[in-house]
């Protein structure tokens, strides 16, 4: 059921035989030689094409490689060319000479063997030595020049291209000439634009960026192999083998997520043969332990625990689906409505209204009452083909989205597709939509079926298993058999698959709403579905091509929900990010003049905590839906400097340090004070799950976790239950109390991650009851936004120093902010 698009984009690779000339593709064994430099080993032919020297000579000169080997099917067989006397292999020194008679020939180097007196004594005429490379070619009787026919069919490579590809091989020996034509290899890729002529131009811009990101992702993940891993074996509820082990995370931001595929290997010993198996990550424990469910249960060396290796198995699926969606967008007229097509490309289009009768009330059953801005949002989006909803932190965008989906589903225009980039967001939304009474199917990637989900009962795989009708008994019987035996006979397996597919289709078709990730919308199981109405939550965290996947299934009405004042999509490849891949579709539409409808009432933060974010990020429009009284920490005895203002900036002057890995930072003083604050919260009656520690650096995160569990004044277990994580991983979530450790404390350097206003916004808006920020004001105040924050805290007498039980207002001087942030 895979669509053709899915494997289309790798086409064209590997067309050449191994010994084809890497410049022109000629592969006649009589015409090619292999460069014998171990790191190179590339084949080249002896044709000049339209360049000055033959391809092999060109390569040897450009790359400064000097040894070659003949092809095994050439007249001399697989032979490394070397001096018959001294073994010198430098082809620039070698030449043939007749040994006494014209019919016996040897290779001899010109330095020093050509001046060996003994040879003259043997009556050899050394003046007749004939260099191997003559007229910028190898001797043509040794390595044939390809025929004209062969040359004409070959790729016509220019001297410039040769120089470029040789340059490229210095860093990437496997690069092909095709890679030269792709931007991003030797120069910056074409940046994203605001408007596009057509979907082909759009594809031309985004396809290389997605490719760059995919290559980077692959390179990074595949370099994550770990040896000497210790395994703890277990058996899952589905009787599958589960391996538990610690897979330490590096500073490079690679986060394993449930559904990732890893390969577990054992090299074997006297009692066990070598073994390997692929599995899916089904969960990550708080102790950073990975649970890997193995695909095959047979032959697992369960009596061994040590000496395993783990590799990451990279999958191109998500990137392939983005490429596929862009292609569909370009070639399939029915992929989106004309209005949406032109609108997405930034063309001027006359405003259209959707002719639908509006409901009398805009709330939905099973959901909380909507506030005025939420009602306004629901009402306006129902009438427009494209709308943006901006939901600042805690403003109830999930409820609003669910209400919109409810009303769209009731309009009878077919099934509604609901997506978000992350599984967590999809689950939350699916739950809320299901609460309105609509029939929801949550479609999960096959690799995540074993991952536990709060909305398991809504997932397609669960519903297939639990569909309770008698005509499904055959499927159930086979399922049971499969569960018990681990596998089925091939005929049963065939039957099972067909029945399962039919049941899946039946359940999916009968749903009002399908919920899945953006990438999940490209699942082959949805290939024949059409969705006129699509809502994408957290759309500001998705790249454009990712957003396109759910849209090209026939969208006529699109609602993008998000907040472009919070963090955008995570792009690992800097080149792709610089070119604009990190800009979401939502943001581009804002830049094109689409005005987002803003939800204005926040229900999360203590009013004191929302004041600064509202003023700095939302033009002061954020209203409080909670009162001070609803956010009183009653019974919690914590030394807030100003009662009724559960916030303070704790001045820290400790030095930053580079972490052991050399790629991150830590700050010991801040870490020690984080522990004191945590302990003080715990002592005053706060439980660990209420506390979140945020720090932008992995080095500091690891250090804090370690420090608290070793030096914490209370029971170790309490500290282990406290979540310590990056700003990014807290996006979309909340905690009652947040402690933010800024780390950077070097007056001569920047503040790194904290420079991004969107990251600061996210960090400041996670807490419901109280926030403590630890940092060095002297360093932070150079940045205008931080300067504003520090001034705000100072004005409210919340900028403090000294021991925690005796906090005093700090008189620390701020620096002048460098430049105005725009």
């Amino acid at each position, binding site marked *: 059921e895979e669509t053709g698009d899915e494997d289309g984009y790798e086409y064209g690779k590997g067309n050449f035989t191994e010994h084809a000339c890497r410049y022109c593709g000629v592969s006649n064994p009589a015409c090619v030689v292999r460069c014998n430099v171990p790191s190179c080993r590339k084949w080249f032919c002896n044709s000049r094409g339209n360049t000055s020297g033959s391809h092999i000579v060109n390569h040897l000169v450009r790359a400064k490689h000097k040894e070659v080997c003949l092809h095994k099917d050439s007249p001399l067989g697989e032979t490394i060319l070397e001096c018959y006397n001294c073994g010198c292999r430098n082809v620039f020194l070698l030449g043939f000479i007749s040994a006494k008679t014209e*019919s016996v*020939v040897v290779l001899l180097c010109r330095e*020093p063997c050509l001046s060996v007196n003994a040879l003259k004594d043997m009556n050899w005429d050394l003046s007749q030595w004939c260099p191997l490379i003559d007229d*910028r070619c190898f001797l043509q009787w040794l390595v044939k020049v390809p025929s004209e026919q062969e040359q004409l069919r070959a790729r016509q490579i220019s001297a410039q291209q040769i120089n470029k590809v040789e340059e490229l091989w210095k860093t990437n020996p496997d690069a092909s000439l095709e890679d030269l034509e792709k931007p991003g290899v030797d120069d910056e890729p074409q940046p994203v634009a605001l408007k596009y002529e057509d979907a082909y131009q759009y594809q031309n811009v985004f396809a290389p960026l997605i490719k760059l990101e995919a290559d980077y992702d692959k390179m990074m993940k595949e370099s994550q192999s770990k040896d000497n891993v210790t395994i703890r074996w277990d058996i899952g509820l589905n009787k599958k083998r589960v391996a538990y082990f610690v897979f330490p995370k590096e500073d490079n931001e690679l986060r394993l997520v449930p559904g990732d595929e890893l390969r577990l290997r054992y090299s074997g010993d006297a009692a066990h043969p070598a073994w390997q198996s692929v599995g899916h990550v089904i969960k990550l424990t708080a102790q950073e332990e990975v649970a890997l469910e193995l695909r095959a249960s047979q032959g697992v060396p369960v009596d061994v625990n040590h000496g395993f290796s783990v590799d990451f198995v990279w999958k191109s699926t998500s990137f392939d689906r983005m490429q596929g969606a862009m292609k569909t967008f370009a070639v399939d007229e029915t992929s989106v409505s004309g209005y949406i097509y032109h609108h997405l490309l930034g063309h001027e289009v006359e405003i259209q209204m959707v002719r639908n009768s509006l409901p009398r009330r805009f709330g939905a059953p099973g959901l909380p009452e909507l506030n005025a801005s939420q009602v306004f949002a629901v009402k306006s989006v129902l009438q427009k083909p494209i709308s943006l909803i901006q939901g600042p932190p805690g403003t109830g965008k999930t409820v609003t989205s669910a209400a919109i989906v409810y009303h769209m589903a009731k309009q009878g225009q077919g099934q509604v597709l609901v997506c978000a980039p992350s599984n967590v967001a999809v689950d939350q939304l699916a739950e809320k939509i299901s609460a309105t009474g609509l029939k929801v199917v949550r479609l999960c990637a096959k690799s995540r079926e074993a991952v536990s989900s709060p909305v398991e009962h809504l997932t397609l795989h669960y519903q297939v298993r639990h569909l309770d009708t008698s005509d499904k008994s055959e499927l159930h019987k086979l399922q049971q058999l499969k569960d018990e035996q681990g596998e089925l006979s091939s005929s049963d397996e065939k039957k099972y698959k067909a029945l399962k597919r039919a049941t899946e289709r039946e359940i999916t078709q009968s749903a009002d709403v399908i919920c899945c990730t953006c990438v999940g919308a490209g699942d082959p199981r949805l290939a024949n579905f059409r969705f006129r109405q699509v809502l994408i939550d957290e759309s500001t965290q998705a790249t454009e091509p990712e957003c396109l996947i759910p849209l090209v299934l026939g969208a006529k009405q699109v609602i993008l929900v998000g907040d472009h004042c919070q963090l955008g999509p995570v792009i690992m490849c800097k080149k792709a990010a610089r070119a604009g891949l990190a800009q979401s579709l939502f943001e581009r539409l804002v830049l094109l003049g689409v005005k987002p409808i803003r939800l204005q009432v926040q229900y999360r933060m203590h009013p004191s905590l929302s004041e600064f974010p509202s003023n700095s990020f939302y033009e002061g429009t954020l209203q409080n839906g909670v009162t001070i009284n609803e956010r009183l920490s009653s019974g919690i005895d914590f030394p807030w400097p100003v009662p009724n203002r559960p916030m303070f900036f704790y001045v820290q002057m400790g030095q930053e340090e580079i972490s052991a890995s050399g790629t991150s930072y830590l700050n010991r003083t801040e870490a020690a004070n984080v522990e004191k604050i945590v302990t003080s919260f715990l002592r005053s009656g706060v439980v660990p799950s209420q506390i979140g520690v945020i720090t932008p650096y992995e080095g500091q995160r690891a250090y804090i976790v370690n420090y608290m569990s070793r030096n914490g004044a209370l029971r170790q277990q309490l500290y282990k239950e406290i979540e310590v994580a990056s700003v990014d991983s807290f996006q979309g979530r909340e905690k009652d109390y947040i402690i933010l450790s800024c780390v950077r404390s070097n007056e001569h350097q920047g503040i790194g991650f904290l420079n991004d206003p969107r990251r600061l916004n996210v960090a400041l808006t996670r807490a419901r009851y109280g926030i403590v920020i630890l940092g060095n004001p002297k360093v932070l105040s150079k940045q205008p936004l931080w300067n504003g924050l520090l001034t705000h805290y100072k004005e409210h007498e919340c900028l403090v120093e000294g021991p925690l039980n005796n906090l005093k207002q700090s008189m620390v001087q701020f620096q002048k902010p460098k430049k105005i942030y725009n």
Partner: protein
Amino acid sequence: DDEVHVRQMVAAVDPQEIANFDQELRAVVQESVEQRKLELRGRPTLNMMLPMNVFEGSTKDHHGRVVGGESGDEALDEELGGKEVQVKVLVKRGNKQQTKQMYIPRDSTLLQSAKQKEAAELEE
């Protein structure tokens, strides 16, 4: 047509580029020679064994006829001007000597010079 096309391709080579490449190539050769001189101080020695059997019978066909062919082929070859000559190439694989047969155009510089030499020797 093909020929025209190929000629065009050849004509397309920029003489300046050829000159530049020639210069680079000569530089690599020069560099290699100097490097060798530095590496090998002291007198070069003869360190090779020529298996004598390769020379056996070589005088018979040193006029450049294709050896081992049927007489008919020989005639044909003669008609075409005997374009190719079979030679024995001595190569080493690791430390092992091997003799390989291959054909070399009669007009190649290698054979031309060898022939001149032999002719000169005969005259003597």
